[in-house]
């Protein structure tokens, strides 16, 4: 793995060509998965029929492909991308390979809020408020974890432990609400807790895309600081990093990314844990390329999971969340085993 240097005037960067080659390869794979996903479903389309559905505005299958399948696939990709980046960022900042949005309370906060909303507010207020409730829950939980972990600044270990405690407490709230609410609520809550992109439309896609861009731009500006996060505080301070300020900013970005992802897709777990690992194991130690890889692996994982979920048991259309772990876990374990040998 040989690093190269890119210099244009005052602009300069180091980069790892092998890692960026993998980024390009993954993008190709994603395009392929996108095309296959567009073609497969209750109505199966051959290559010619797919092309026609995409190009001809009056094609009879155009509605299925352009208004049902395409936004759903893109929403899955965005959710996976946001969770992959959030998990990667949390693992960097917490200096802990087990950190993920599920473990530090963000997902549990969103879940408790979403389930409560479904139980008591969905009827009077309608379903449009669900993402808002989930986002507020995620933000509230993240803020609570940060505040409770504070003592002359926060340390990664305190954050992880506080997050685990918070996740357990909020998990109990979720279970309690499920237990005391009517059965119809329980069913929709169960789908939400599994994670699903069923019924996604273009307005969902554009809203989530906007959020992702708004959060990824500041993150890109802070990449240099992210790369110092795995060092211990004394070293990072010695290198001129304002440790506490940057830690707070990066945690806020990670929580927000995870929060918006679950707001639109429900509590997809495991993506935020496994995507960064795939990126790291397959790309070595490198900065931006590793983040982009975590983003792409996350996106690809949720896209594939949803493809399987809506085609494997036709005509059943299952929540994608079921298959995230079913696909991700064996691949993850295989990678660990290969590494040992």
């Amino acid at each position, binding site marked *: 793995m040989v690093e190269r240097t890119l*210099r244009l005037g005052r602009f300069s960067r180091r980069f790892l060509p092998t890692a960026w080659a993998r980024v390009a390869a993954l993008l190709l794979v994603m395009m392929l998965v996108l095309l296959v996903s567009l073609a497969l479903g209750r109505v199966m389309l051959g290559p010619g029929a797919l092309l026609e559905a995409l190009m001809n505005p009056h094609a009879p299958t155009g509605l299925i492909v352009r208004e049902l399948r395409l936004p759903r696939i893109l929403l899955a990709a965005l959710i996976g991308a946001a969770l992959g980046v959030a998990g990667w960022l949390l693992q960097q900042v917490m200096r802990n390979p087990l950190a993920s949005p599920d473990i530090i309370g963000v997902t549990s906060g969103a879940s408790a809020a979403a389930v409560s909303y479904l139980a008591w507010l969905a009827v009077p207020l309608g379903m449009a408020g669900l993402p808002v409730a989930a986002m507020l829950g995620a933000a509230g939980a993240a803020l609570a974890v940060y505040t409770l972990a504070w003592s002359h600044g926060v340390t990664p270990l305190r954050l992880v432990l506080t997050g685990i405690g918070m996740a357990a407490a909020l998990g109990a709230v979720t279970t309690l609400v499920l237990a005391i609410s009517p059965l119809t609520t329980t069913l929709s809550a169960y789908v939400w807790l599994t994670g699903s992109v069923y019924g996604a439309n273009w307005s969902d896609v554009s809203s989530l895309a906007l959020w992702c861009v708004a959060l990824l731009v500041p993150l890109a500006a802070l990449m240099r600081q992210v790369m110092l996060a*795995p060092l211990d505080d004394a*070293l990072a301070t010695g290198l*001129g990093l304002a440790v506490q300020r940057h830690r707070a900013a990066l945690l806020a970005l990670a929580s927000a990314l995870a929060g918006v992802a679950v707001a639109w897709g429900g509590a997809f777990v495991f993506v935020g844990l496994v995507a960064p690992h795939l990126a790291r194991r397959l790309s070595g130690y490198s900065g931006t390329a590793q983040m982009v890889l975590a983003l792409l692996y996350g996106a690809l994982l949720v896209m594939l999971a949803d493809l399987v979920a809506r085609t494997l048991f036709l005509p059943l259309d299952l929540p994608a969340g079921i298959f995230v772990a079913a696909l991700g876990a064996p691949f993850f374990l295989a990678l660990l085993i290969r590494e040992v040998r």
Partner: protein
Amino acid sequence: MATVSAHALMLGYQRRRILDQLELDLPEGKISVLVGSNGCGKSTLLKALARLLSPWSGQVCLDGTDIHQLPTREVAHRLSLLPQQPVAPEGMTVRQLVQLGRHPHQRWLSQWSPDDEHQVARALERTGLEALADQVVDTLSGGQRQRAWIALAVAQNTPLMLLDEPTSFLDMNHQMEVLDLLHELNREEGRTIVMVLHDLNLAGRYADHMVALRAGQVYARGTPAQVMIPERIEAIFGLACRVIEDPCSHTPLCIPLSRQARS
């Protein structure tokens, strides 16, 4: 050149006071070594000098300005720090570690200037690590690893280097390897070096200026020959000893006396 000093410095953890009205001035361009028994506050003092801890009262000054009033990045241009027992992120190579030393000199636009490249190459050469540059830090021997950390500070290219017990947990040969390297950096590049050492004899051998702490205050300071006299060593470490001249380096050598030898 850069210099640190402390004035009426009070500092501690929770309610326990460690440093008490401490006054300290360190000579520029020299090797200063802080010595004292466990718990005397020498590591705390070094952390305060490196702005890792904020004083309760009093101040630490870098070139005459309160260090906590300076932007942390500005401080990182003048002062580098090697903490005790640093840990490299998993899988990081020596070169990647040393490259981190350029962080305070980089901007968002310019993250790998020709100067960055030059300083990293120089730091690797200076510390004799060129052949090991692509090895993962965790796989190196203790002495090599410590040289890699020093190379990071060299790449940071600051006139002042602070090191907290850079030789602890190293074998004797690796201790010498590290201290010889620091000595060269001082003599050949004029860097001011301030370090904590717990081995008094090594301190005596390499220090131009020795500062002995006792109960959170400077008890004695000066050349090793001025500080390392038996009465003072007894007061600092609570240890009876004889001091002879090291036949090789002609610096003072402390021979501790066992309880049996004293009677």
